């Protein structure tokens, strides 16, 4: 041990001595610290690297996102690098910083940031390295995409709209009048707040529908089961419908209804997870909303690819297309067949058709 320690001590000593003689720099030196605004020189299509990063492949929605990315990559004769970080913010940052240390001149990244606060370091890393970045879902409201050259676009979905859509579908399913209960998501997230605001809008338009109770089940299936059991006991036959802020909670509510032997209650959710689609097919669930995961996986790469190959210039992307709400789809029994095995279509990813699903800029 003495042997190792002396050697290492000597090495560190020399390193420290050398360090004091040299100055500090802002950026790591290297042959490929690409310059910001690399868009000036376009890449050969075959040289583009496509990377898709989501939390988890075990989540069917996120797995379908990566599959969509693969479909786009195949369409342009490339392959997509699939990265997952297990919902761990630190791990996501580590992967991104390692990725950006490689060759970044023609790097295109379609990233799902773990949370709002994880977006700024990703954006700044990409900007510094000159890699093309598209983010989805999470972004701090005060971070403007137009302040950056490499951050091409941010896509998200209008939660108020989806909350209202399923609220209206629920009102229709119970015949326009009766009592409903609402299962809220994690109260501290924008998604939960927006979706519930959407329900309130829907209630305003359907005055005969009465909100008997609203409680949080934290987006969790197990919690929704317990909360629904309690609320069913409390309100009994008055409950005609259940509004859930996501499908997992809707599925939990369905379980509670089954245990209580109730078949007369309509249930709606959001996300279009496979189990929910099956339930809609069977007729046990009324409606859900899909953001179209495969399209999300493809579109981010498509935007980056079009800019990297010079078919689209960053300056030419309208300000309202830099941060926008994408279209989402209400799924009911009559159209559920189209969504059970979602597929991407090539025309969605054509460079002149990238922003066709925009529902307007994020206000």
């Amino acid at each position: 041990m003495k042997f190792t320690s002396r050697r290492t001590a000597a090495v560190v000593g020399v390193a420290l001595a050398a360090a004091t003689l040299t100055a500090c720099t802002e950026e790591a030196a290297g042959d490929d610290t690409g310059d910001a605004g690399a868009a000036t020189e376009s890449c050969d299509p075959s040289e583009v690297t496509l990377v898709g990063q989501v939390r988890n492949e075990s989540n069917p929605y996120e797995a379908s996102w990566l599959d969509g990315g693969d479909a786009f990559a195949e369409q342009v004769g490339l392959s997509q690098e699939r990265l997952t970080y297990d919902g761990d913010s630190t791990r996501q940052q580590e992967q991104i910083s390692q990725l950006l240390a490689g060759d970044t001149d023609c790097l295109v990244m379609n990233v799902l940031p773990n949370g709002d606060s994880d977006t700024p370091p990703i954006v700044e890393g990409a900007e510094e390295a000159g890699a093309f970045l598209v983010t989805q879902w999470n972004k701090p409201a005060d971070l403007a995409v137009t302040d950056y050259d490499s951050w091409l676009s941010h896509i998200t979905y209008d939660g108020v709209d989806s909350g209202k859509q399923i609220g209206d579908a629920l009102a229709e399913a119970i015949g326009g009048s009766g009592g409903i209960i609402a299962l809220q998501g994690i109260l501290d997230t924008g998604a939960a707040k927006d979706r519930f605001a959407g329900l309130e809008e829907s209630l305003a338009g359907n005055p005969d529908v009465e909100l008997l109770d609203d409680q949080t089940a934290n987006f969790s299936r197990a919690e929704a089961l317990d909360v629904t059991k309690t609320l069913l006991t409390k309100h009994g036959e008055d409950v005609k419908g259940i509004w859930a802020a996501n499908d997992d909670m809707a599925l939990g509510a369905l379980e509670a209804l089954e245990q209580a032997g109730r078949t007369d209650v309509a249930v709606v959710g959001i996300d279009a997870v496979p189990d929910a689609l099956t339930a809609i097919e069977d007729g046990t669930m009324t409606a859900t909303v899909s953001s179209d995961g495969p399209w999300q996986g493809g579109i981010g790469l498509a935007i980056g690819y079009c800019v990297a190959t010079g078919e689209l210039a960053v300056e030419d992307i309208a300000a309202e297309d830099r941060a926008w709400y994408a279209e989402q789809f209400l799924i009911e029994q009559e159209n559920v067949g189209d969504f059970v095995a979602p597929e991407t279509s090539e025309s969605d990813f054509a460079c002149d058709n990238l922003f066709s699903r925009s529902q307007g800029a994020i206000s």
Partner: protein
Amino acid sequence: MSTPVVTKPAPDAATVARPTVGQRLTAFMPVIALVVLLAALTVADPSFLTQSSLTAVVRTAAPLVVLAAGATLVVLCGGIDLSIAALCSLGTVLFAMWLPDLGGLTLLAVVAATGAIGALQGLAHVFLRIPSFIVTLGGMSIFGAVALVISDAGPIRVVDREATHWLTLYLAGVLPMAFVVALLVVAVVWTVQRFTPLDSWIRATGYSESAARLASAPVDRVKVAAFTVSGACAGLAAVMLVSRNFSGSPTMADNLLLPAVAAIVVGGTAITGGHGSLWRSLAGALVVTLLRVGLPIVGVPSAYEQILYGAIIVAAVALTLDRSKLLIIK
């Protein structure tokens, strides 16, 4: 090994035994494991072995090195500190909350606070005679909950980046400052340990606590000191995380606990105490970081990534463990 406590009786205390080739090789095993892993990653993806890529690896490794270095002291004493990751998360929250008021002093304040919390755990361990595993398990859940409560269960963004800017610089354009700080921490703690009786006391405590007490080594004080350093290191690692994420969050470092323990063990430090060193944990932390970031980047599918990670960790420990220093495997 000049410690008076050895597991095999020395044939003649007066002559210093020269290490055999095998022993020398074992001492270098963590470094060998590191080189082999790097070579394997390079074979999988030749573009991985570039200077900028290695720079990114050591930059990523910095907080893990500091966390593992601190906890190594506790492990050397024969204990375990499970609270480091939660304490580090709490540190990121404290840093983000205190920065607007304290400015440049926040770093010292956070390190002092986490050091004090570490000392408190050490005192609870020593005076209440609770196993370190339990004390720090309790600490882990307490610190996690405190961090959640004071941060309102969400991340706190750090707008003023002046205080942590120096940590994001690069020395000579190559060495990330955070990694230099991590090296300094390892070097300073090691030097203090090496040139004072502390080294003997720590090892004696780790190998056989009762024997150390009989030999009138200040076992209790040594243990409290080890927990204090471990806590302070968690605070420093927290500042490093904040400097690179621009925010503090109550769960930011939670997933670094197992990598830190893995770093210690892969380095060849015996989890049962006594045998090992901080340098070994440095090499171990680099191995673990290479696995964490290297496997996905060279294109290993995520399903196989966890399998490979587990298999390589076990293989690395099998390589680096000095079996001559271990009499009992728990």
